[in-house]
Structures are given as C-alpha cells and as structure tokens.
C-alpha cells in the first residue's frame, strides 16, 4: 500500500533527516522524494510504501503529525488513492 507524505513549513536544518529517520524506524520505505521552496515555504512530497509498517494507518497519521509539531512543520500522511481519484481520469 502506497501513501503520500507531504511536509509543509518554514525551511530549517534537519527536516528530511528527522522525517526519514522516523519512517525508517517504523519500517516504511521511501520510494520517491521531491522537495522545493514554494512561496517561501519548504515543501516536500514523499511516496512511501507502508505495507510493512509497524504502525497501522491511523497511528502513523498521529505519529507523523506529532513529529511535525515537534519540528514546527505540517506533516500529512494520506493514502495515494485520494490523489489518484481526484486528479486522474
């Protein structure tokens, strides 16, 4: 099962490191990653494989949100189907 993790916030050192460490700790593989600065905001989008995740989806959402609060950025975890449904015919 693939999910999209989106991180949005003020740029600072260590965002990618902290997010990817958390994912590795929970056995979540990053398959693709892109980052950019949009309207002065750091924006990172990751495609991840969560089939072997130690956390169920609801807990993963909560943990990543909490990590975002710790770093000072917004972190969203969403099943990729919501984006595919909306943007692909």
């Amino acid at each position, binding site marked *: 099962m693939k999910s999209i993790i989106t991180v949005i916030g003020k740029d600072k050192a260590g965002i990618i490191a902290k997010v990817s460490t958390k994912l590795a700790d929970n056995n979540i593989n990053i398959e693709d990653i892109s980052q950019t600065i949009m309207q002065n905001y750091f924006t990172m989008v990751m495609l991840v494989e969560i089939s072997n995740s130690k956390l169920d989806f*609801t807990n993963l959402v909560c943990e990543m949100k909490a990590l975002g609060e710790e770093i000072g950025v917004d972190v969203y975890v969403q099943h990729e189907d919501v984006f595919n449904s909306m943007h692909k015919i």
Partner: protein
Amino acid sequence: MLSNNEILETINMVKEEHFDVRTITMGISLLPCIRESAEKTADAVYDTICKRAENIVKVGEELSAMYGVPIVNKRISITPASLLTANFVGEEIVLARALDRAAKTVGVDFLGGYSALVHKSMTAAERSFINSIPEVLATTDKLCSSVNVGTTRSGINLDAIKLIGEIIKKSADLTADKDGFGCAKFVVFCNAVEDNPFMAGAFHGIGEGDTVINVGVSGPGVVHHALKNVPDADITEVAEVIKKTAFKITRVGQLIAKEAAKRLNAEFGIVDLSLAPTPVVGDSVGHVLEEMGIETVGGHGTTAALAILNDAVKKGGTMASPRVGGLSGAFIPVSEDIGMIESTAAGVLTLSKLEAMTAVCSVGIDMVAVPGDTPASTISAMIADEMAIGMVNSKTTAVRVIPVPGKTVGDYVEFGGLLGRAPIMQVMNVSAEKFINRGGKIPAPIHGNKN
C-alpha cells in the same frame, strides 16, 4: 505520477477551503422488523440497527485518517417509519424511542426516516403517524422526520399540506424553550428521493436493498476558491471551472463511499454531490454566487447564477461517479450559510427571492425562520407554493421552516452547530386560509402523465 501541485491542491482543499465529506449515511431496510406489537417491533428495530451500523463510526474515523479528508457526520436512514407503525396506530412513540436509543448506541449524529409518503392520499395509520411527529421531535434527540406530499406523477395532496402546517406549528410550540428547534428536524417534500444522505430529509426508500451506503460530499469553499482564480472569465468558463471542481470533489466521495461500503459489508448506493454550506466564513453558497458577480446574494441575477452553479455541479458530479443520486446540486439553507444570513439581515434576500431560487437548485425553502405568530394556513400555503414548483418542474423541492415562538422580524434565532443562526424573515401578511381549507388533491400536470 502525481505532480506536487496536484498533491498540494488536494491538501489545500481540506486545509484552507473547508472541503469535507459531509456524511456517510447507512440506509437500512427495517421491513423485516415488523411484528404484531409496538414493543416487539421496536425491539427488532433496535437490534437490527445496532447490528448493521455497529461499526459505522469507527469506519468513518478510519477512512477520514486514511485519506486525510474530514468526514463530518455519520448517519443512518431507515425505511419510512409509517410503514412500520401501521399495525399499532397511536403507539408510534414506542418505535420512535427505540430508534433514538439505537442511534445513540451506535453513536451516529442523526437518524432519518421518521417519515411518511402521502403524496397521493393518506391512510388512517399515516394520519395518526403524522400527528405523532411533534411529540417525537420534541422528545427525541437524533431523529429527523419528513413527509412527502406531492409528486409530478400523482399531483399534490392538499389535505396533507393543511395537516403539515398545523404539525409544524405544534412542533414549534412543543419546543418553544429551544426556539422551535423541533421544526429544524422536519422537512416536507415534493418528489422526495429514496437515497438522500442529507438531513433532515434522509429516508431509505422501499426500492432500496437491505443495507446501503450513501455518501454526501460538500465543498462550497472549494468552488469559491476556484472561482477566485478566474475573476475575468466569461460565464461559460465559470461554468467549466465549477464543473471541474465538482468532478474532483465527487471523486473523493466515490472513493470513500466504495471503501466504506466494503468495510461495512453493505452495498454502495450513491454519491450525493451537494454544495452544503456551513455557517463558517469560507463555506458559503451565497458567497459563491457573489463571487460570480452578484453584489449581494438575493439581488437580481441570483437565480441565473444559481442555475449555472447547480447545473455545473451536477455535470461534474455525473462524470465522476457511476452512481450519482440523492439531491446533488446546491443547497440554500438560510441559517447555515453566512452569505445568506448577512444578506437576509441586510434586507436583500427575501422569501420571494428564495422561492424563485428554489426553482433552479436542488432543494427548497430551507432553514428559514419566520415569526412565531405566522398562521398554520400561511405555512401550509408556503409549502403549497414550493410543492407546486417541484411538481411542475419535475424536481425535488422541500420546505424546512421554523415559526419561532415569541420572535418576530428583526429578531435572531440561534440553533448552533451546523444549523447556524437565522434572522427572522418577513412573511406576507395575506391570508390563504380559504385556499388551504378547500382541501383535496391538486391534479398532476399533463407532463406527469408520460406513459
């Protein structure tokens, strides 16, 4: 591969533009629960609802977390209750209490379907059932009620409309301590649909299966935002932008509806794409119409703008889901829409203009507060007007009106939550008593006879 812009667009819809799935509504057929007594029927109904809807709240929360889209309400709709109570006339309240208890046990926000379909005529049992509605609305918390009094096919039951005017007055009186709140949980229809997931009018039609999931999506804020990006577009382009936005919103509803049906072991019914406003800023259908170029909603041009909006929403939605149903269009509930509230308070939006707007949108005179001393016959006449618009135009129309006890034009009423607040609207001080008292049936229009 998805682009970052597409991903951010979806996130912003939820974060900034109030996009939500308004409701997952489970329709449950209760016909197998009919027993020889009120008590036994009520017990069977309670058990059936608790069993079938046991996981609806949990599944709703799981899907909300999984897709990152809020699912605001979880609801149940049932077989029109008058079919269940026909065997024990006068004891309808026994069933109503069991329904309310079941709704609380499974934790849903509302249960709809304390309903009767009397568009052609009324049985003695149905008359008794309708007479039970005020007490039921006053003494239960979760129940919503509706009565269908007309169809394009059968005409309009004026006898029922006369009775409903009295029922609405009585409901207001019995809930006078809460500003007539009982009336906010009751709606009268022409051409009611059998798969509507929205309240107060949801019921599980007799053409439906055992357990069905219908999903209502919303998103006036998303449409408003999309239109802000095309300030100088001509009206054809405006319609296109609305259509594309409606498509995207409905696709999410479709995804959630299918997954919810699978997890709840139910049939996927329909997606109802209705732009349902909430009282918060940024979630208003009135403001969408203003973005289209009307200075204040209710001014000249509003009906045309609403017609474009309603049609474009339907077209986008139809493309996005194999099963679009329910009401699917734009809702204009006055108390639930900040744009409508402001316009009414400014004296621009009137009941007459609202009535015209209902000819081109998906519902009717909705969440309108009127003076508490409005006569029952005047309320019946308002209903008759609205039903006539639905009957002649082969569309659903509805009336949810609250005669607020002790209040008059210039006062406000606060219902709170999704139901919002409303300025009391001016009603015409002209009697229709003679018309309503004539009784009988309004014949169906010639185009209702299509065979």
